[in-house]
């Protein structure tokens, strides 16, 4: 696309797709924005009236609000940490030529194909359940009191489940990056007297920086909206201990039938997501140049 003529043509050809995407985004956003300034309750749908900033004030002063933001961030950061560190580790393991490599790789990737509610149910009833979960069996085997995961560590439990689901994605991306590492570089470092950990920190990690950035950015987008896992396991509880922003909005809309309040929450969530995005692009985005 070197010449001005082809550039103009390219712009023309791109236009329909871009306009469609823009409309797709802007219409729901405007509607949400509009609703967030209305008194609009599903129990009384005929009685809508202008509410001004009341919905925002109401959502903001909800004692669960700050906690839900904190939970959202803890959830995102916790899962990112586990998946990036664990993904790097697993990727390095399965990058080595081992017997049955094909099978091992498929097994490692398979959790990604389990739908989130199904995965959450499996973890809830078969793994973390305090009386017949696998972890409880293990605890009893060692003569320890089984942990009631969802009652005692609700947010940690959800982080574990979500991390389990996203680990394959991280592993896969990081593995491809690892495979593109020049072996002669590693050999040169070996001859330069760099021990394995130095090679990892000075060569492997910088090489993977771009892939790690991609993993962080993509996962953050999805992790900000985690919802099914919470609904299926803790239902946001106990109390609001495992309620994130998405779940709080769901509660407003579905349990209190408060469309206006939920819309205000949605707008706050959009703002939060943008703040996170700006922060991330500042922090790691330069790796993508």
């Amino acid at each position, binding site marked *: 696309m070197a010449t001005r003529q082809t550039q103009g043509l390219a712009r023309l050809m791109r236009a329909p797709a871009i306009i469609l995407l823009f409309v797709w985004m802007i219409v729901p956003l405007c509607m949400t924005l509009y609703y967030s300034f209305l008194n609009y309750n599903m129990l009384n749908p005929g009685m809508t009236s202008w509410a001004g900033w009341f919905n925002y004030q109401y959502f903001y002063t909800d004692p669960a609000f700050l906690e839900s933001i904190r939970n959202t961030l803890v959830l995102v950061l916790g899962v990112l940490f586990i998946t990036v560190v664990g993904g790097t580790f697993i990727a390095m393991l399965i990058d080595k030529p081992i017997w049955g490599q094909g099978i091992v790789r498929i097994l490692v990737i398979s959790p990604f194909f389990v739908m989130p509610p199904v995965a959450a149910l499996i973890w809830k009833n078969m793994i973390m359940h305090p009386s017949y979960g696998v972890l409880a069996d293990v605890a009893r085997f060692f003569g320890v009191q089984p942990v009631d995961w969802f009652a005692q560590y609700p947010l940690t439990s959800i982080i574990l489940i979500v991390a389990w689901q996203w680990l394959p994605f991280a592993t896969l991306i990081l593995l491809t990056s690892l495979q593109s590492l*020049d072996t*002669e*570089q590693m*050999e*040169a*470092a*070996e*001859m*330069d*007297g*760099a*021990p394995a950990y*130095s090679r990892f920190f*000075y*060569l492997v990690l*910088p*090489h993977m*920086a771009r892939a790690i950035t991609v993993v962080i950015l993509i996962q953050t987008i999805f992790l900000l909206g985690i919802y099914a896992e919470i609904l299926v396991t803790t239902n946001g509880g106990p109390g609001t201990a495992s309620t994130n922003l998405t779940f709080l909005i769901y509660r407003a809309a579905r349990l209190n039938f408060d469309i206006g309040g939920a819309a205000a929450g949605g707008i706050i969530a959009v703002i939060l997501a943008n703040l996170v995005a700006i922060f991330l692009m500042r922090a790691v985005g330069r790796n993508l140049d």
Partner: protein
Amino acid sequence: MGQITLQGVAKRFGEVEVIPPLDLTIEDGEFVVFVGPSGCGKSTLLRLIAGLEDVSGGRILIDGKDATDASPAKRGLAMVFQSYALYPHMSVRKNIAFPMKMAGMPKPEQDRRIEAAAKALNLTSYLDRRPGQLSGGQRQRVAIGRAIVREPSAFLFDEPLSNLDAALRVGMRLEISELHNRLKTTMIYVTHDQVEAMTMADKIVVLQAGRIEQVGSPLDLYHAPKNVFVAGFIGSPRMNLFTGAVAADYGAQTIGVRPEHIRISATTGKWQGRVGVSEHLGSDSFFYVEGTGLAETVTVRSGGEVGLRHGDTVWLTPDEGKIHKFDTNGDRI
């Protein structure tokens, strides 16, 4: 110090024996060139010496000490790779400093050596660039700089110039030779370039299918090739090899005559033929003579300009004293 001795060193990849057991001694301060056709095991041999591959048999001694099981870093050798293998996200300065940093050398000493290497290799103004912002020749010099600062007992080069264009290759060739003269460190250099081998080496090792065919000085190899393979491999253009009746006249299975040892004449001579393609380089002319009945074409080199054209009938006369004779095993008689 940098004497390297290989005793019965062999290498197998699974079932395939790439290098049958071989013995070789490389003296301290020598410039040794490994040459051979593609896939003959030059790189593998170099990597065995470097410690990047494990030997399947035999011993490697460095300065008399057994280094067969020593890790690459412990052998005190430095390697320059064909792909340069620079660390892409580090500046030139950091690249050069890396081996010293790993060795825990004090910072002032590091800086002193970096400055010295940069000056010797004309890299001073590029120290803060990344490898990606350098030309091929500059990258090659950074790779050499990274090797020099460690003050290794020997340098290993694996086709370091093959990614450079012809002019640059000549320049870098001279630089490396000069470096060797200055440092007097052992250097092992892999190439399949005739000219590099002949001009740089103190000692050439000719390999074929992992076997050493001959070890000797460039002129030894040129004047007295041990067998048909070496005769055909060393020298450019290739030696003319004749079998059959002519060879039998000399009591040999095969005889070889270098293009520069055949006189070409339009009037008289021993063998008659027809000029095919001719190449005039100004200083030299090469004629590819057909229809002699000796071989498909006979290459002849002649100094200066000779007024011969395509299709002319010519007579060729070999320099009798410079004919190489080989027996049925291909060995020199």
